């Protein structure tokens, strides 16, 4: 298997400057290409310098008692499991692993159903119910003289 200049460049970016740690299926081809091409060796040297710059990035070690602190805080947390409405919904999202777009869609749907419910309610107000019929039924019920089962 041979490797082109373009492939070598891409592999350098993806897998890094340590060719010996590249995936097995491309490692040998990479090493062989390096042996015969000075251009590839120059590319490798450039990548090594670039990675050295990247590793100079600022980093602060965590506090020595980080784990201890988390463990001790957790002891007091478990006992008071109080959930507000926000907490309930956030846990609901976690439970169903809903992505944000899906959550938005569900929320919009719920709001639309609510609006539709109000619209139906307002389009059929109490005043529009024929009261005469209701009264008649009530009278019939109150003054029913027939056989009661």
């Amino acid at each position, binding site marked *: 298997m041979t490797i082109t200049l373009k492939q070598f460049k891409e592999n350098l*970016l*993806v897998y890094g400057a340590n060719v010996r740690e590249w995936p097995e299926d491309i490692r040998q081809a990479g090493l062989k290409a390096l042996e015969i091409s000075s251009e590839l060796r120059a590319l490798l040297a450039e990548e090594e310098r*670039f990675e050295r*710059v990247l590793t100079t990035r*600022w980093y602060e070690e965590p506090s020595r008692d*980080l784990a201890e602190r988390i463990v001790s*805080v957790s002891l007091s947390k478990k006992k008071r499991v109080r959930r507000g409405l926000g907490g309930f919904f956030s846990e609901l999202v976690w*439970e169903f692993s809903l992505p944000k777009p899906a959550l938005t869609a569900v929320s919009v749907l719920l709001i639309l159903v609510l609006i539709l419910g109000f619209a139906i309610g307002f389009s059929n107000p109490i005043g529009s119910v024929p009261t005469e019929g209701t009264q008649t039924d009530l009278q019939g019920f109150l003054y029913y003289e027939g056989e009661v089962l």
Partner: protein
Amino acid sequence: MDTGFSHLDDESLIQQIQQGSHEAFAAMVNRHSNRFYRIAYRLVFNKGDAEDMVQEAFLRLWARPQLWNPGKQAKFTTWFYKVVINLCFDLNKKRKPADLPGDLELADRRPGQDALLGIHQEQALVDGFIKELPERQQLALNLCFYEGLSNKEAAEILGVKVKALQSLIMRAKTTLKEKVKGHLGGGSI
């Protein structure tokens, strides 16, 4: 601190945590807090905030351990990376741009400080360039280059295919390389 749980793998530990074992939880925290702190620090650029994010993630795990579902998630650490990363991104969204820990103080011009200043300047520049990358490119770079995760695992954490992850890494590194060359000169890389 050996609690007797240290020989258990993550998946067995979490099963113990799901049954309410605080010792198992302590073993999990001891095993992984530094690892998850590293990725949190790389994303929020601040020690205090990174520690808070890791603490918050572990407390959520303790309060609701059944959120990790062995049927859904392949590996505990893959899932927990997502938890920590989401907390960090949420924090970054809440911050105003001015709140983001910025470049290091470069105003120290006392004699003898030049070499140190050069190193700090380089560190601040690299951090600054990484901050300017799109969120997903930053994450791909952090997971693969700084954390040394395999492309497959990083892709799983990001929820993308391996090819897409590799494309993110290539774009991130190409952009960074150009910026580093532009600011630190071709001799630096």
